């Protein structure tokens, strides 16, 4: 067994997840490639969204992968940092907006 939960080398084995279920994996990877193609959004814009989501879901594999991908697609350091701030604002805001629920409850319970 690995001594840690995350091993950077495992990122290269992502494609191997089909070993225990090739059909679903194939469908997933076909879909995955299609999602990242140039479309109404550019491939670079999609890469920056992926980088932000990677931070929101705190996936170290995805952070590695989409930092490299962003550099390859010509994203600047400033753009990548702003993407991380978007993730931070949304995840932070998501916690904070629940404060309204807390306030509602406090008010409903209090005299």
């Amino acid at each position, binding site marked *: 067994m690995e001594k840690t939960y995350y091993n950077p080398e495992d990122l290269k084995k992502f494609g191997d997840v089909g070993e225990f279920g090739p059909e679903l994996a194939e469908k997933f990877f076909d879909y995955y490639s299609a999602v990242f193609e140039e479309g109404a959004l550019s491939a*670079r814009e999609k890469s920056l969204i992926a980088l932000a989501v990677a931070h929101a879901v705190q996936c170290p594999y995805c952070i590695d992968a989409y930092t490299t991908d962003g*550099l390859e*697609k010509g994203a600047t350091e400033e753009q990548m940092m702003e993407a991380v701030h978007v993730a931070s604002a949304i995840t932070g805001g998501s916690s904070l907006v629940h404060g309204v629920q807390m306030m509602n409850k406090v008010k409903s319970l209090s005299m």
Partner: protein
Amino acid sequence: MIKSLKSASHKLSDPVYQLQLLNNHSESLRQQPKFREKLDEIDLFPLKPTGIEIFQMNVGYMCNMTCKHCHVDAGPDRKEIMSKETFEQCLDALKSSDVATVDLTGGAPEMNPHFKWFVEEASKLGKHIIVRSNLTILTTAPKYQALPEFFAEHMVEVTCSLPFYSKSRTDRQRGEGTYDKSIEALKKLNEAGYGKTGTGLELNLVYNPVGAFLPGSQESLERDFRQQLQRKHGISFNNLFTITNLPISRFLNFLLMSDNLDEYMDRLITAFNPAAAKGVMCRNTISIGWDGRLYDCDFNQMLEMPVEGEAQHIHDWNEQKLNSRSIQINQHCFGCTAGAGSSCGGATT
């Protein structure tokens, strides 16, 4: 001044050592497939020329810059310069050949004292001339500042280095102040008609990744460069060529120092593209060193891997024999076959 690896007597200035590293530096590199095996799998080994179309002359390793990624290890301290005699031998070869394009590189080719004379002579032969300029040289002494007009007069295609449209990223690779000087030079080239519709004066930019990653799509980077350079500086150009950094010389030094060598080689090898292998530039190019020696490409020149056969010097020019040679390869060649491919003219697929 930053010293070249050569003048610092750095062990990475030894080509044999560089090739040893690429093949045997770690367990991971030892286990990687060899370039020869990958060519074998697609029936391309031995790699054969498709016919020489580009006569690429490296007219000297002297340069006014010392860029961190330079595969030539060029710099102000490099004194290797093509002599007039070797230039004359090149002209003799060109006279007897149908090769249409003469590609001048360095170092900074403009710093060779015979540079202008040679451009005039090659131009008289009706050859299409490309000069690979670092741009900053065009902002130095008055004789270099006057070059855009000279280039225009001879319809020289100017292909120049600009790794990114931001100052910080460009300067990190090429030295503090490079971006501003490059912009100044590009404006002068635009003023001379370069990159402008209808002039026929072609201005191309070269993008190299500033770090241990591959270039992205040439088309979309070109779109970004065009938009940004026009918006920020009013600069126009014809094409952007994306070039992959080959893991040799100073870029190899960076990969070692940053502990990225294994990972970078893995990226290159995993991204091996058979279509890019079919279109590698060594199949239609011959590279001539400052001393007249012949190589399959500028990278093989830096690794001191001359062309196969006995005729290894420009004074032995024999196009027929050269067209039947087998091209010399090693692990660095994965740099030209990764992803969309890479050549002096950008992506190859």
